[in-house]
């Protein structure tokens, strides 16, 4: 059993978690949701083993190439889903979160992302690699939960005849999004900005150089700062809040993928 077999099994488990989650919409909701949750948990364990194997074989952090980073981001999203499902009972949200995980796993598995080990270039040989990348991706995983909840909110129109259950579900989407940002934002601040600045200072002699990756991390951070301020001080909830959360995550996606492929800079590793 090698890392790729474990990853494939994890992918299948996540796919089944997603499918059973959507089945729960149609019938025996409680039972299918439970099955979905445990399938996700099994996938998480298999995925964790795959990452551990990769770390041992490569003798380096399992997030130095784009393939590894996408796989680790998927793993982090699963962790976020499991934690939030236990705490808030995600119900209707969970299958869409599994969809995001499946999409990330499909991307990681695609031939477009080479799977070979790349020996670490001198700039990446630092324990800050572990801290900076892992904490950032963990933060982004929770922001992904907020993104899905917000997107679902935006896609569920206001209905005067919707009934109390419908409104309660929309309110829950809004609440879950806020709670996810409350976890993801401090992690992202710590990982992307603070740890990133410390590492840049050590490697390049300056903590901030306005390179595209740094600027887009700041842009992402500013979007979520905007989200929190409008929500906490202006009392914005619902559509306006959800829109900012969606834009913030699109900025995070561009920081992760877009900068590497469309904008050049000192930061172009993974």
């Amino acid at each position: 059993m090698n890392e790729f077999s474990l990853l494939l099994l994890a992918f299948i488990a996540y796919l089944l978690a997603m499918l059973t989650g959507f089945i729960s919409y149609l019938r025996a909701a409680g039972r299918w949701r439970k099955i979905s949750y445990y399938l996700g948990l099994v996938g998480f364990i298999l995925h964790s083993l795959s990452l551990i194997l990769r770390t041992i074989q490569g003798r380096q952090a399992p997030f130095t190439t784009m393939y590894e980073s996408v796989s680790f981001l998927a793993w982090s999203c699963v962790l976020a889903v499991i934690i939030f499902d236990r705490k808030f009972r995600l119900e209707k949200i969970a299958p869409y979160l599994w969809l995001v995980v499946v999409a990330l796993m499909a991307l990681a598995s695609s031939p477009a992302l080479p799977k070979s080990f790349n020996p670490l270039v001198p700039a990446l040989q630092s324990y800050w690699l572990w801290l900076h990348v892992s904490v950032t991706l963990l933060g982004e995983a929770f922001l992904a939960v907020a993104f899905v909840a917000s997107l679902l909110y935006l896609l569920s129109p206001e209905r005067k005849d919707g009934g109390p259950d419908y409104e309660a579900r929309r309110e829950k989407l809004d609440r879950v999004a806020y709670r996810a940002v409350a976890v993801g934002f401090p992690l992202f601040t710590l990982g992307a900005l603070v740890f990133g600045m410390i590492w840049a200072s050590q490697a390049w002699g300056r903590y901030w150089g306005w390179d595209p990756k740094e600027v887009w991390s700041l842009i992402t951070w500013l979007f979520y700062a905007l989200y929190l301020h409008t929500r906490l001080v202006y009392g914005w909830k619902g559509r306006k809040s959800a829109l900012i959360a969606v834009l913030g995550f699109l900025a995070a996606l561009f920081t992760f993928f877009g900068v590497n492929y469309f904008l050049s800079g000192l930061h172009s590793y993974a």
Partner: protein
Amino acid sequence: MASLKLGIALLILIIILAIIGTLIPQEQGPEFYREHLPGSYGLIRFLDLDHLYRSPLFLSLVFLFLLNLLSCSLQQLPARFRRLRIRDEKILASGRQPSDKRDRSQLERWLERDPLRLVALFREKGYRVQTDSEENEKLFLARKGRPGLFGPELVHLGLIIIIVGGLISAIFSQRVSLALTEGQVEKIPGQTFSLRLDRFTTEYYADGSVKDWKSLVSVLENGQLRLQKTIEVNHPLKYGHLHFFLMGYGQDWDRAEVELEISGPGVQTRTVNLRVGEAEEPGTGIRVEVLNFLPDFGVKAGGQPFSRSTEPLNPAALVEISEGGRQVFLGWVFPPPQVASHYQRSSRPELKVSLKSFRAPAFSVLEASSDPGANLVWSGSVLLILGLLASFYLPYREVRIYQRTGHPPLYLVYARKNREDFQKEVDGLLILTGRRESKDGKDE
């Protein structure tokens, strides 16, 4: 006066400008923008979009944001400190009288008959409880998450310090580049010490890719060796208030040493080793001089040779050979089998000169940096993170019940977040109906 609307507007403007700065390549010369963005050249130059992040426009927005943050924090702090006091008339005055008669009676019961149970009820929930009882009045105060009360102010203070640190760095930080070959000693400008590069090595992985560069340097002061350390990427040297980073490396092609092979009919094949600028008379009346060396030979449109890069992709040496004081050969020689006779002028065409091998001393590029703003940025970052943790994970909660003899009780529930949920929770705890007149729930 601080304005949240202004703060939000500034955030949005900074986001927009920051995005523009990543789409327009920064710090390029005017020819670059004229060539690649001819239609926007005027606007780019007018708004300084080519160096946006140090432009007056961007810096003004950041400065305004800083002032607004500072003003907001100074405005909020007195109210926060007032909350710490058990008895504050302004806060007590904001308490509400429950509209439901049953709720008024219930609160009176808590204060008069069950004060100890009231205290125990809140302590079980993790609240710190204080009571104050005087002749004419009773006061009950339960609260938790005191660090969270100042969470947002800590975040703002952290950001202020980071921005100030950043401005100090932008104005006062200094960076000096040093290119040192092995054995070379360089005095650091403005300092009393020098650096000597003792050894520069490159380590490789099995697949040939670079694993590490190491510069073993010595710090010399007053002729004494003060410190010797290996500088690598991620492992700078700190001496005094300067940090030395390994920023690059290269080969000093101006001091290249070449091995030439000279042969031909009637000429004994000989090998000559020379540095650029050196000459040798290897015998039989000929003199060989190496005039120049280019690691990546190319020719400009006007026919002028130049090096296309610093990598030895197409090495060539400019060699002059004279015989009896008369030039018999002048031209660029390349490693075999390449023979470029069109770059040579020779009165003895039978003479064959080739570049057998070459090497050049490696140099290490170090950057000396001093940044007086950095420590402020680190301090600000710590406050920022502590503030975020306090705001999100130690939310401040407060319950005050106050009654003056002969008056109905006043009831005040305060939370910086999730006020409605907290209100319902406390109403449930105190067994109140929860009916009250609606009031603006905004923070003071």
